């Protein structure tokens, strides 16, 4: 518990630093203006949504190899929290795209991959909801998680190759044009803050799941005791 509080404090401090760097330290971008500052949040969320699925899948693979329930809880928590960041990534990207590109959405490889990734996250979460026995839920969702994760790079590459045969959408100055040194600082701080925050949420989610399980076992024990008492 002590360690967790420390971790929370660290996350908080880094988040404050990142906010300072994003809004005050980093200069305003010339062509895009203030909107560009979404970039720090957006890229960090996207980074987390990719990190989360591979993080989750390492737990899924380990679960299938060992069969320890705790590993399944960790994988599920990683998927669940990752889904939030994936949604944030897509929404923040759309808010940025409207003023900069003039459109909310384009079927660019990156956007498409994020969208499909989001659908895979939803599939995983729905599957868990709809499977009743806990052992089965753990095994089957792990298998689907692995299939989904294997697919992520293939989806991205297939979209890129598909795009090369079609006209490129008009993009007003992507961020490929390079960043100012101060922007890099803000960017890395934002990445760190998001990663820490993700890990923190993940840990809390795991604890919550463990508490739920403990409560369920206790409830069952109480019921047994009550029956015996009668």
């Amino acid at each position, binding site marked *: 518990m002590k360690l967790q509080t420390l971790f929370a404090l660290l996350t908080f401090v880094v988040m404050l630093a990142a906010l300072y760097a994003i809004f005050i330290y980093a200069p305003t971008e010339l062509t895009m203006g203030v909107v560009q500052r979404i970039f720090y949040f957006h890229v960090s969320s996207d980074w987390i949504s990719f990190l989360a699925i591979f993080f989750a899948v390492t737990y899924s693979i380990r679960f*299938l190899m060992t069969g320890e329930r705790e590993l399944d809880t960790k994988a599920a928590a990683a998927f669940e929290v990752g889904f939030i960041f994936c949604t944030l990534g897509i929404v923040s990207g759309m808010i940025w795209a409207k003023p900069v590109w003039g459109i909310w959405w384009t079927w660019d490889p990156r956007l498409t991959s994020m969208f499909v990734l989001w659908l895979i996250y939803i*599939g995983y979460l*729905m*599957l868990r909801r709809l499977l009743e026995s806990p052992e089965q839920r753990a*095994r089957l969702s792990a298998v689907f998680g692995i*299939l989904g994760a*294997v*697919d992520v790079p*293939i989806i991205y590459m297939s979209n890129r190759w598909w795009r090369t045969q079609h006209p490129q959408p008009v993009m007003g100055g992507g961020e490929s044009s390079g960043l100012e040194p101060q922007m890099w600082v803000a960017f890395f701080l934002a990445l760190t803050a998001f990663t820490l925050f993700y890990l923190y949420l993940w840990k809390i989610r795991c604890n919550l799941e463990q508490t739920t399980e403990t409560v369920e076992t206790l409830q069952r024990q109480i019921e047994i005791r009550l029956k015996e008492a009668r």
Partner: protein
Amino acid sequence: MNFFSQAAAILWKDILTEFRSKDAITSMLIFGLLVILMFYFAFEPDRLEIEKFGPGLLWVTFIFAGMLGMNRAFAGERENDSLQGLKLAPISWAAIYLGKMLANLAFMLLVEAVILICFAVFFNFDLVPRLGWMLMITLLGTLGFASVGTILAAISMNTRMSDVMLPILLLPVILPLVIGAVSSTAAIFTDPPGEGLAFWLKFLVVYNIVFLTVALLLFDFVLEE
């Protein structure tokens, strides 16, 4: 019995049961024809539009018709409680997967052949000069679809709403396959064949190898209890 004759036995069993009832094949076929009918009245395509939309139409039809069959693959085993028997048989579970996958592949190919003929006839589109390529693309695309579909059908049959769950799990995973199949079909639909055909065929081969391997490795966990 070695691994492949085990898989062949499962395949033969599935073909026999299917040809007694013909449930899956009939529903897939009629559904496919209905999609083509709807497409005609929704778009009233001319010759150029067929070149443009035909590949997409064909693959959407194949995939949705295939999904109907995929749902049946394990639902039947479940209704008759015969999955337990299969699992108790002295065979490797991966062979069950392979047999079921090949059965799905066979049913789909049969249905696709009929849909292709109807497509050519109804839209007055000359498939004969492209037949070789078309068969190859159809085979590769359907193989990939069946490899992913069979394992995901085995997963989704355990859920409360298995009919709805299968497309939700399956469609995002096969998106690259659809891109590859539609792009290569589009390449052969133009005269002379467009560029990119060889590339997308190689892509389909890679997709098949990756997912067939992963599915064979993971299928044991799906059946385990």
